[in-house]
């Protein structure tokens, strides 16, 4: 049986999620014996328009060229999987959707007319159908290996949608909200990271995006009670997954509260 063909494509991003492949260590060499990598520019493999079984997408759509490229990639891929916050929820750069991007570009670049970009930064789902989304900023090698393993066996990967709070309990981490009054986003954030921040004694900052059934209103009230003003509560929701509707709504509701 021929090896399954895989591609890794990059759009607007920090390259950090591709590292979930490149940081596998010797497992990376094992992976290359199991799959046929047809495109992975950072690893030196170029075949952007080749048909593949699975295309992994890092990064968000932010230029007119990006729009054309993602459509070609979709047409050539049996399965399309987004990896990380940029591809899945816009990433930090999507914060410009909330502001006057033209004025921002003008503030950074002396000649903004040379800069080609779309008005809005969008996750991949906004442009083409996506078969599976891996959340996290960044995704880690464990998530990638689990997803590749499932897909190669024809199984839908497990969608980890639990809250970070659940992971804290499993890890027996002390709750930083209850014990120290820290403004933790764990109650609304999906797990996958292993509750890294609370286990380091700091508040979760929601880099894995919204969990299932997140009660953002109750968390907002709690954060307010801890002394945060509305603008700061809104900022808590406007991190790497700011384009998720549930976080955007929460930010809108809270931003003007004193």
């Amino acid at each position, binding site marked *: 049986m021929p090896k399954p063909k895989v591609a890794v494509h990059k759009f607007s991003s920090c390259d950090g999620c591709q590292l979930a492949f490149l940081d596998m260590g010797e497992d990376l060499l094992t992976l290359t014996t199991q799959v046929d990598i047809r495109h992975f520019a950072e690893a030196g493999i170029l075949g952007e328009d080749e048909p593949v079984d699975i295309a992994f997408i890092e990064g968000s759509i932010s230029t007119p060229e990006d729009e054309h490229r993602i459509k070609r990639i979709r047409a050539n891929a049996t399965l399309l999987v987004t990896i990380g916050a940029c591809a899945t929820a816009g990433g930090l750069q999507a914060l*410009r959707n909330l502001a006057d991007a033209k004025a921002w570009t003008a503030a950074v670049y002396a000649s903004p007319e040379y800069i080609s970009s779309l008005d809005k930064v969008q996750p991949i789902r906004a442009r083409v159908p996506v078969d599976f989304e891996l959340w996290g900023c960044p995704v880690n090698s464990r998530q990638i290996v689990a997803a590749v393993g499932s897909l190669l066996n024809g199984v839908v990967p497990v969608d980890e949608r639990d809250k970070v709070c659940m992971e804290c309990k499993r890890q027996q981490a002390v709750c930083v909200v209850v014990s120290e009054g820290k403004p933790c986003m764990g109650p609304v954030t999906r797990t996958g990271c292993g509750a*890294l921040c609370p286990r*380091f004694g700091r508040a979760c900052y929601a880099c894995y995006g919204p969990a299932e059934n997140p009660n953002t209103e109750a968390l907002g009230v709690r954060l307010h009670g801890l002394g945060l003003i509305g603008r700061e509560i809104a900022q808590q929701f406007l991190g790497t997954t700011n384009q998720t509707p549930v976080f955007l709504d929460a930010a809108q509701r809270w931003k003007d509260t004193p």
Partner: protein
Amino acid sequence: MNDTRRVDIRIPVLARVEGEGALDLSIRAGQIEALRLEIYEPPRLYEQFLIGRHAQDVIDMTARICGICPVAYQISAVQAFESLYGVTPSAWAQAMRRVFYCGEWLQSHALHIHLLAAPDFFGCTSVVELAQKDAAAVRRGLRLQALGNDLIALFGARSVHPVGVRVGGFHHAPALAVVAAMRARLDESRADAEALLRWTARLPLPDDDQDFVSVAMRHPDEYAITRGRLVSSLGHDLDIEDYTQHFQEFQVPHSTALHAHLDGKPYLVGPLARINLNLDRLPAPLRDLLDELGIRFPSRNMFHSIVARAAEVWLCIDEAARLLADYRIPEAPAVASTPRAGIGCGCSEAPRGILWHRYVTDAQGNVREARIVPPTSQNQARMEEDLRISLTRFGLDRDDAELRLRGETVIRNYDPCISCATHFLRLKVDRTR
């Protein structure tokens, strides 16, 4: 050769670099008519959305500029806020930040040497092909990369976008047992580091001496990583706050990353610049090893960058082992501070060179202005200058495939990070005779 020969080479996607870039080269009558290193990674406008955020957000957000050097962003940022708030981290925290940063150099350098740069010197297109020719070297590289990642995770919980840094120190001090296990791995890895350095010194590196200006940080007591003054091979010795008095950033039409000059001229930052300016700060055993291998620093051959990277890998393992030797758990991993209004600068040696930050805050510590100058944008002008010289010396009458490969090799030598300020090159040739 025909005088009217006109060659247009376009390498549309630069491979084995971090981010999105391309090279445009047009040759007319045996001379380079135009040479442009294009960076088209979409602008992400970080400096704008940092406005209104507080220090911890800045530390966590600027890390996302680059997945390969998040530690550099975090350390330059936290330093700026510590200077602003007038707080000095404990000696423990300063030493542990150096260890944390050594992890990033180790990870980034091992990744660059093996996955990005070395395939060029073996006639391979990727590390997968290289692994078929020299499996032991690739496995050694992947081990060193993993060691670097684990060293970052010791203080940051994960290696990409770590979560451990805060104003005043760290959020968390690693446990004694975890550090003891890391010390043992570091000691075992010394042999890998020496073998790597010997391997890079034996690579068939082109001989290409050029005149260029090196810029790096320098510190009285250590090979500068997390702190120091800014020095150059022209004799500059500056406080980091005086950066903008001598360094100018400017926009060019073909790049979404700003270019930079030092007093009006291109300059080099990164491993070769660092070692050229700080040779006397390297530990004696490492200097002896370099002498034995016959690679002379300071060097004017840009291709010696890969050897400089391997020397820094050796240094990082040695430094981390030294600094963790008498590790103890501090009373508190961070000292407290109070936000205030002011201006603060931070600068550290990212794996690719100096990374400078400047913030202005209001009385609550919210950012009012932010400015970030990453290493790759500083190196762009030097890369274009180098390409002109080295391709001309290589021979512009060579065929397109040879020119393209040499062009890519020269670019990859700088380990450009287009996410910070890149990817692979595609080639379009248009020959008119």
